[in-house]
């Protein structure tokens, strides 16, 4: 005996199945350009067949859609997160290093080389005509240019450090905001999935947020199974940890926070009040990667000194600039150079050993520093009564690239530029000739002459920058490749969807036709049979 309207039911199921499929195609086509979206597929099966009593077999009862799943290879997500962290770090470094590189403005006709060159040229001219007031003014002006060059470099680096510090703060609040969104999604996904469904679109959104997070900081993201739900499904909780400590654990979020440092990390190089990044609950945070690490390495990196990151960042270059101006000023003013490399300075001839035009005393320093109200300090105030080599040399640790200046004595009276080694001999150029020789004095720095030192600074920055460019390009390629694989797996293909559209459209049409056929059958049965 057969159910009367069995055929209708089967046909209607066909209509439903086709419609559900069309809905899914519709959704896929809609989201073809949605970031992070993974295409969805109907899980379609033949519905439960009916056994026939007399043993003739089982009769099929049509089809049904029993689930909608997203097509996603979660291994690729994990792979993406682990590569994206390094991509973020080197992208950040690349941008900042190229900014630092431009500051030096080398090789060009207006960078350090040219400036130092013009300074020494003016000294050479003065040696040829030591009485000339015009040339003395020139020397003083060119000295000011050298000082100003270092002032502006140092200022630029400080501004960059402040700027990076602000970026760090922004990134930390971005991390917290992403965290809050993920926390929200965790709630939605968990409650949506309690009955065994998969919250496809919500999961896509969450993965996209984790993608973003993985570029900013090193994370480990996992779904941890903690037990079974009442209905037998696995109870899964989504956990993100940063360097071992949970950032997000299911519904709870542990935020990051910035705090102003009470004391500088690099006492001689840093600007005050930089931020430390830590956990809001006061725990220490170790940052191993991501943009945040890139920023911190550049902002704090002092080649490991003072417990700073082992990277040549802004403090390293400020340190090098300070070292340059201190050593150069010391050699130029006093003639102190460590000739035998024993760490103790030897006294040579410097500016302070000579006499100016019409001058009767020695002891005038050409370079000192800016003091109160940004006014140049005089030689006497600068040396502050010290008379021993060690004592005087120690005074030079007060000079920084930021406050480097031509001394007040020289600025006030260019006749004090010490050309002579004897009182009252205007044509005596013994002293200035000694100063000129300093330019090629290869023992002034461990790296060699002044220009060699700066060359090594600029070149090592160039090499670091080149390294950052290369690594970030490699990482970009890797990340891009993983993205492509993700798109290949999970992306929507219009062609495919259109083909499926036609397929299901046809199926729908056919099912509808079945309804018609059934209707005709019943028409015959009801209206014509036995009438």
């Amino acid at each position: 005996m057969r159910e009367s309207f069995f055929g209708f039911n089967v046909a209607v199921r066909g209509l439903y199945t086709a419609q559900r499929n069309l809905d899914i195609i519709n959704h896929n086509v809609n989201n073809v350009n949605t970031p992070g979206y993974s295409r969805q597929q109907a899980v379609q099966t033949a519905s439960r067949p009916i056994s026939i009593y007399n043993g003739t077999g089982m009769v099929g009862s049509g089809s049904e859609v029993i689930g909608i799943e997203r097509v996603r290879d979660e291994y690729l997500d994990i792979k993406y997160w682990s590569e994206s962290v390094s991509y973020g770090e080197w992208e950040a470094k690349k941008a900042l290093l190229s900014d630092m590189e431009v500051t030096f403005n080398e090789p060009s006709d207006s960078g350090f080389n040219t400036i130092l060159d013009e300074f020494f040229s003016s000294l050479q001219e003065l040696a040829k005509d030591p009485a000339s007031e015009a040339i003395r003014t020139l020397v003083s002006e060119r000295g000011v240019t050298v000082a100003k060059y270092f002032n502006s470099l140092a200022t630029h680096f400080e501004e960059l450090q402040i700027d990076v510090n602000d970026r760090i703060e922004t990134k930390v609040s971005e991390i917290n905001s992403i965290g809050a969104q993920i926390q929200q999604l965790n709630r939605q996904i968990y409650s949506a999935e309690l009955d065994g469904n998969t919250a496809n679109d919500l999961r896509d959104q969450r993965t996209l947020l984790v993608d973003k997070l993985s570029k900013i900081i090193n994370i480990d993201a996992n779904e941890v199974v903690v037990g079974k739900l009442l209905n037998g499904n696995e109870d899964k909780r989504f956990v993100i940890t940063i360097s071992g400590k949970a950032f997000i654990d299911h519904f709870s979020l542990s935020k990051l926070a910035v705090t102003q440092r009470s004391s500088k990390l690099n006492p001689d190089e840093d600007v005050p009040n930089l931020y430390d990044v830590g956990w809001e609950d006061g725990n220490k945070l170790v940052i191993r990667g991501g943009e945040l690490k890139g920023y911190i390495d550049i902002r704090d990196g002092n080649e490991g000194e003072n417990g700073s990151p082992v990277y040549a960042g802004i403090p390293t270059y400020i340190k090098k600039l300070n070292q340059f101006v201190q050593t150069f000023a010391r050699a130029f003013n006093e003639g102190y150079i460590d000739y035998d490399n024993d760490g103790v300075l030897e006294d040579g001839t410097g500016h302070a050993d000579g006499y100016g035009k019409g001058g009767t005393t020695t002891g005038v320093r050409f370079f000192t520093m800016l003091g109160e109200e940004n006014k140049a300090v005089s030689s006497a105030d600068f040396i502050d009564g010290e008379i021993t080599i060690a004592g005087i040399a120690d005074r030079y640790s007060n000079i920084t690239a930021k406050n480097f200046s031509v001394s007040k004595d020289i600025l006030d009276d260019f006749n004090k530029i010490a050309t002579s080694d004897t009182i009252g001999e205007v044509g005596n150029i013994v002293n200035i000739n000694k100063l000129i020789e300093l330019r090629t004095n290869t023992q002034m720095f461990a790296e060699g002459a002044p220009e060699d030192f700066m060359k090594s600074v600029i070149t090592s920055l160039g090499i670091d920058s080149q390294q950052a460019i290369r690594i970030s390009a490699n990482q970009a390629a890797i990340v891009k490749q993983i993205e492509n694989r993700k798109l290949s797996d999970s992306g929507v293909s219009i062609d495919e969807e259109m083909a499926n559209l036609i397929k299901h459209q046809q199926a729908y049409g056919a099912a509808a036709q079945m309804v018609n056929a059934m209707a005709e059958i019943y028409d015959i049965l009801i209206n014509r049979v036995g009438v």
Partner: protein
Amino acid sequence: MRITNNMLVNNMIYYVGNNLSRMESYQSKLATGKKISVPSDDPVVAARALKLRTDVSQVKQHKTNVQDALSWLEITESALSNVGAILQRARELAVQGSSSTATADDTKKIEQEVAQLRQQLIGIGNSTYAGRYIFSGFKTDTKLMNDDGTFAIGVDGDESIIFEIGISDNINVNVLGGDLFNNGGIATATSKGQLIQNMDDFLAALNTGDHNLISNAIANIDDDMNNLLRIRANVGARYNRLEMTSDRLDSDEINFTTLMSENEDVDQAQNIMLLKSEENVYKASLSGGARVIQTSLVDFLS
């Protein structure tokens, strides 16, 4: 591999972007003529560029120093040549005066001329170059000699004015007053140098008209001339050395400039070829990409 529409679009953006950035690099090389614009483009080239710039600028500075040293020595040489002419004339006069035929009247006349020559010598002792006294050692703002022929200032043997004409290569450009006027000795303030003293002795001899004394002056003047010759030979040798240095610096400048150009300048012909080829790649990638991303099955469904 399954290909999706967004893959096509992303790849197109990525590759077109890469092509464009390569084009940009060739274009900037074309515009600047330099291989590198920042050190990270090629740190090795950058380091060499910095070194060569220093070398070129130093050579240029040394060239101007050599020119200045040459003019200083030219002025000195012309002063010395005047001294030579004066001594020559003085010797002629001494020979005339020492002749037994010279009358007292003649020696008086000679005396007048020699007195003039003596004044000229003092004038030469106070010659200047660009306002600086060239024989005054380091005291270039002070006259070497008083009008009476005594030294106005002391000039020690170590008052050589040294110009740098190369790295660790220096030259002394001045002749010290004592060397010339005191027969290789030093000049002491208020004392009289040998040269002037000899003139004074000569004048005194002329005044007395004593032929023997006058003929003594010939020997003295010969001594003075020998001293002068020694100095002139020395100045000439320095002048020669400067000229050779100048030639060497000229060729150094050319060499360093060539090296600098080889190091950092772009081979434009090659660069333009590369730019052209890159342009083709770029256009091809655009047109290929544009075609691929436009079409889908939608276009063929009716």
